[in-house]
C-alpha cells in the first residue's frame, strides 16, 4: 500500500440557526464523496454518528450565540480548531434571531411560550466573532455552496482563501442583468449588499433584500434617496434592513437613521 499523508480533520458545529448552511455541504452532491476522500469528517452531527476527538484542522461554525451554555461551548470549539470558518448570516452577524437585541427578550419568550421560565436564553443573539477569534467568514443566508467549496479547497491546498467583498451590483452587472431599480423602480439593496449569491434576486426580477449582509464599503445614506424615489417609505426601509443581518453594524445604523426620522416626524405630528 502506498503511504498516504494523514488527511486533515474537518468538523462542523452548530449554534442557533436553521441548519441550512451546514446543509449546503450535503447539497454538494457531486463533490461530497470526493471531499470525504480528501478530509476526515471528524464531527458533523447532522450527517454522522461518528465523533473523533479534536484538535480539528478546519472547523465550520454555523449559528449565533444565544444561550449562556453556547457562549461557553464556542470557546471549547475555538480551542480545538486550527482554522475556524464561520458560515452564514447567523454566525457572522447574529442572524434573524438578533431582532431580539433591540427588543425585550422576556416579552418575546412570553409571546411564544406559556411557561417562559423554562426557557434559558440570552438577551442578545451575537456573531461568533464577538466571542472568539474567527479566521475566515462566509456570508449569506444561506451561504453559497460554490464559495464554501472554494474556501475548503483553498485551505486544503494551503492557499489563503480569497472571498470577494464587493457589492451585489458588481455581480449583477457581470451577469448582464438590467438594473431592477433604474429600469423598473424596484427597491433594491444590491448597492450596499455583500456579493456571493450571484445577484440572484435581480435575476428573478426582484430587488435584493440583503441576505448576504453589508458589503465592505456601504453608502446606505446615498441609497436612501433611490429607495424613496422607488416608492419605499421610511418604515419600509427600516424593515428592509431589519432582517437576516439586522445586527450587522452598517445595516443597524441604516435602520436607526430611519427610526430616528420616523420618531421626529411623529413628534412633529403629535
Amino acid at each position, binding site marked *: 500500500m502506498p503511504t498516504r499523508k494523514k488527511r486533515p480533520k474537518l468538523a462542523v458545529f*452548530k*449554534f*442557533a*440557526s*436553521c*441548519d*441550512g*448552511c*451546514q*446543509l*449546503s455541504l450535503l*447539497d454538494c*452532491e*457531486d463533490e*461530497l*464523496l470526493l471531499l*470525504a476522500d480528501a478530509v476526515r*469528517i471528524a464531527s458533523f*452531527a*447532522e*450527517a*454522522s*454518528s*461518528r*465523533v473523533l476527538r479534536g484538535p480539528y484542522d478546519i472547523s465550520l461554525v454555523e449559528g449565533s450565540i*444565544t*444561550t449562556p451554555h*453556547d457562549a461557553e461551548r464556542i470557546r471549547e470549539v475555538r480551542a480545538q480548531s486550527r482554522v475556524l470558518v464561520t458560515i452564514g448570516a447567523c454566525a457572522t452577524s447574529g*442572524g*434573524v*434571531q438578533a*431582532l*431580539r437585541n433591540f*427588543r425585550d*427578550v422576556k*416579552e*418575546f*419568550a412570553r*409571546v*411564544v*411560550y*406559556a*411557561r417562559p421560565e*423554562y*426557557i434559558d*436564553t440570552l438577551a442578545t*443573539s451575537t456573531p461568533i466573532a464577538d466571542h472568539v477569534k474567527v479566521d475566515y467568514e462566509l456570508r449569506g*443566508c*444561506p451561504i453559497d*455552496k460554490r464559495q464554501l467549496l472554494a474556501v475548503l479547497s483553498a485551505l486544503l491546498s494551503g492557499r489563503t482563501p480569497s472571498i470577494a467583498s464587493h457589492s451585489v451590483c458588481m455581480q449583477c452587472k457581470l451577469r448582464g442583468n438590467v438594473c431592477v431599480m433604474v429600469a423598473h423602480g424596484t427597491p433594491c439593496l444590491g448597492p450596499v449588499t455583500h456579493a456571493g*449569491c450571484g445577484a*440572484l*434576486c435581480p*435575476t*428573478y*426580477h*426582484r430587488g435584493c433584500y440583503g441576505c448576504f449582509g453589508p458589503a465592505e464599503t456601504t453608502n446606505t445614506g446615498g441609497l436612501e434617496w433611490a429607495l424613496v424615489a422607488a416608492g419605499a417609505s421610511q418604515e*419600509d426601509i427600516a*424593515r428592509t434592513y431589519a*432582517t437576516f443581518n439586522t445586527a450587522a453594524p452598517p445595516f443597524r445604523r441604516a435602520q436607526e437613521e430611519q427610526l430616528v426620522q420616523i420618531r421626529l416626524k411623529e413628534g412633529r405630528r403629535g
Partner: protein
Amino acid sequence: MARTIKVDYLARVEGEGALTIRFKGDKPSAVELRIFEPPRFFEAFLRGRAYQEVPDIVARICGICPVAYQMSACHAIEDALGIRTDGTLRALRRLLYCGEWIESHGLHVFMLHAPDFLGYEDAIAMAKDHREWVVRGLGIKKAGNAIVAALGGREIHPINVKVGGFYRVPTRAELSALLPALETALGDAEMCLAWAARFDFPAFERDYEYVALRHADEYPFCEGRIVSNKGLDIDLHAYEEHFAELQVPHSTALHSVVRGRGDYQCGPLARFNLNFDRLGERARDAAERVEFVPPCHNTYKSLLARMVEIIQALDEAIRIIHGYAPPDAPAIAAAPRRATGYGCTEAPRGMLWHKYTLDEAGLVEDARIVPPTSQNQKCIEQDLWQLAPTLAAMPHAAATRRAEQAVRNFDPCISCSTHFLRLAIERED
C-alpha cells in the same frame, strides 16, 4: 438495577436534541426526548412585518424545508387577503414542493436513515461498501435540488416565492432542461425502493392515530381537509378546536395532542396510510411490487413511505413540466385588508399549519406556526415507552443505537420544532 440509556447529542437529525430513557429494573420509568435547540422566537418578531416579507422570513425557520414554510405562509396570507392561485401558478407551486420532497426525503433516506439499517455511522462510511446506492441517492437528491434551484433561484431559502405566485416564472426551456435528470432519478428511485424493501425492519407496531391532509383527487401538498384514521375530518380553520399544544420543562418545542385522545403521527407514513388511493399509478405500482401497502403500523418503514413519495414527486414533477406553458403574469395581485387567514401544507416531515392576523395596512398582528416535529414529539416519546422493554433486554450499545433509530424514523427537524410554538395555556382537556 437502575439503568439509563442516554444520548447527549442526537446525530443524523436536523437540530439539537438529546434522549434519555430511565429504567427501574426492566420497566421504563422516564422517557425524555430533550430538545435544547435554542429558541429563536419567530412568532414574536413576525409581529409588525409586512405580509409580503413573511414568506422570506419564515423560510429561515428551517434550512431543510424552507419551501414548506413559504407555501404554508403564502396560502395562509392569501386566505386572509381573499385571493387564490390557480392553474399554472398552482402547478408551479406543486412542482417546487415536489423538488423539496425529493431533496429532503433523499437526504433522510440515503444519508441519515439507511446507515442505521445497514450498520454504518454515516453515508460516507456506507459508501465504502454500497457506493452505487449512495451515488444513486445523491443523484435523486440532486434532481430534487435542481427543481428548487431552477424555480426558486437557489436550493436553500429560495428567493422566487411571493404571496400570489412568483417574482418570475421559468421559460419552457428552463424547465425542460431538468427532464433528463428527473427521468434517471425516477428509474433509480424505483430500484432504490426495491433495495430498501429488503432491509431488516425491526418488528414494532403501535396503534397510531395518523393525521394528514386529504385532497379530493390529489396526493396532498398544499390543500385539503385535515383527516385521521380515528375519525377526524376537519377544515384547517378548525385546527385549534381539535388540537392542543403543551409545554414541558425538558423541551424548547411544544408537544401536540389531539384533544381528548393524545399523541398522533404526521409525516410520510401518515400520508401514505391515509392517501394511498391518491398516489399516481407509477408510485402505487412501485409500492405494490414490494408489497408495501396500507395499513402499515411500523414506523421503521417510514423509510419506504419516503421512497414511495420520492417516486410520486418525481413522476408528478415530470408530468407538470411536460404540460407547462408560461402563464400571462407571474403572480396575481392582492390588496391588504384586516383579516385572519389559515394555511396548512404537507412539509416533508408532516403537516405544517400557519395562521396570520393582518391589519388594514397588511402588517402582521399575530402569527402562529405549528411545525411537524413538535406534533410528532409526543408520538416519538410514546414509541420509546413501548420500545423500552425490548431495549432493556439488549446490550447497552445496541439498545442505544436502536433507540436513536426509532427517533430518526420521524426524520425529526429539531431546528424547526423549537422556533415558535405559541401557546397560551398549559392544559389537558
